[in-house]
């Protein structure tokens, strides 16, 4: 796992490469989540945790709940609380979808994700119009709300409300007047490359 310092207006990005083939059992999930939370806990400003699923061959529902759903649950705090936390899941493949989406939906949550092919995908529970706005933002990377509304042909106020809701759910980031996707945020960070496996960290097996 690696972490980088924040850029001029960007958050610290912690990349957690899950070097385990088998993400199974709640205990394993708890250990992985604890490691990620420790990594971002000490940061004062915003932080983005990037979970890299490229090496994960099997993830079960219990582990998905512990690693992804509970990590996302921890990010949904009041907007007034400083130091927002964001989660981005990368390297998602077809067999990850059922457990991860199942775990998120049980809690009414959603997470920003990127398939192994690089295509953005919003996982979990969300309204269709939120999904449309989120996808368009991913396509553009960073954009003004009015430009996004123009591009989608929707009312700017409605677009603004959807973006605010996506922000409340930590699925997008606001940077002064502009909005950005978490993929854009991660790609702007110099530390978004894969981290080395940490035998003491969440990449290690078991507790």
């Amino acid at each position, binding site marked *: 796992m690696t972490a980088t310092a924040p850029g001029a207006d960007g958050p610290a990005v912690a990349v957690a490469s899950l070097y385990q083939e088998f993400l199974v059992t709640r205990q*394993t999930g708890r250990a992985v989540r604890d490691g990620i939370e420790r990594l971002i806990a000490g940061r004062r400003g915003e932080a983005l945790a990037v979970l890299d699923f490229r090496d994960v061959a099997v993830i079960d*529902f219990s582990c998905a709940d512990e690693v992804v759903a509970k990590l996302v649950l921890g990010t949904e705090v009041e907007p007034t609380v400083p130091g927002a936390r964001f989660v981005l899941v990368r390297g998602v493949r077809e067999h990850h979808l059922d457990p991860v989406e*199942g775990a998120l939906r049980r809690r009414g949550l959603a997470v920003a994700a990127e398939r192994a092919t690089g295509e953005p995908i919003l996982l979990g529970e969300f309204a269709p119009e939120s999904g449309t706005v989120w996808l368009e933002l991913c396509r553009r990377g960073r954009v003004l709300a009015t430009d996004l509304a123009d591009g989608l042909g929707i009312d700017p106020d409605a677009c603004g409300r959807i973006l605010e809701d996506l922000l409340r759910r930590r699925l997008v980031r606001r940077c002064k007047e502009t909005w950005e996707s978490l993929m854009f945020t991660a790609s702007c960070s110099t530390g978004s490359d894969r981290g080395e496996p940490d035998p003491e960290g969440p990449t290690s097996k078991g507790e």
Partner: protein
Amino acid sequence: MSRVIDVPEVLDHRGFEELVESLATVAAEDVERILFNAKHVRWVSPYGLIGLLAAGRVARDRTGLAPRIEAPDNREVRSYWERMDFWQAAHQVFDLEPGSTRPHSSSDALLEITPIRSHHDVHAVVERVRERSASILENRLHYPKPSVIQFSVMLSEVCQNIIEHAEADGWVCAQTYNFRERLGREVLMLAVMDVGVGFQGSLASEHARRFGEEWSSATALEAALLFGESRFRDPGRGQGLQAIRRQVGRWDGMLAIRSGDAQIAIVPDWEEYPSLQRGLAEFPGAQILVVMPAREEGAAR
């Protein structure tokens, strides 16, 4: 006073019920030691095999003495028990003669009898079956490639049920065999058992009051399997069994969960089996059976 319990000749999930009924009569008697007479067993399923271990454990708990067991006369059945590592597991349950655990040649089982005591065991089981399940599911049962991962997920969830809820150890095993009589096709049978607190005991603190006098093993099983209830208030809990139910349904398979004096089942068209049974002979813990039939050639994926 000693007591002999005859193990049914066909020891599958139906035979296990006979075994449990025999064992229930023991509880009422003043019995010192039990002998399980398995000499006449001529066929056994994975469910029946770990069911025998569970019955032995219950007998030991009730009498305070490790029961004895007579091995089957039938050479093929004996050989199967050895290949499934029955005697290794039986050492923890029965009063066996020293040296009764014999080494065996390589097994064709998907998963030999494996004790489940911690999440490390679950990891080991999931990792161990990966290669074997790929060959069996794809080549023999004609399942699509993703089913190998889906089976691993199901195996993990069903084994975790023991760790998270049973408050006791358990066993798992899996094997394919030809289900000619009923289906005319091969099936994969997965069996997982424990003799812990059972569904009623596990869910009682959180749900018993809501059900009042209706609260029973049957209502606990329905709450868990059909409505995803768990003993935890956390909404993320209870999804494992729901996921298993969905997956078994997609495979046109059968899922049966026995606990206490009840059994609930998701029954496919090819099987005749009650979807809910009450008033069975009381047996502790949970006993889970999954049957996955081979896909017919050309079946839609």
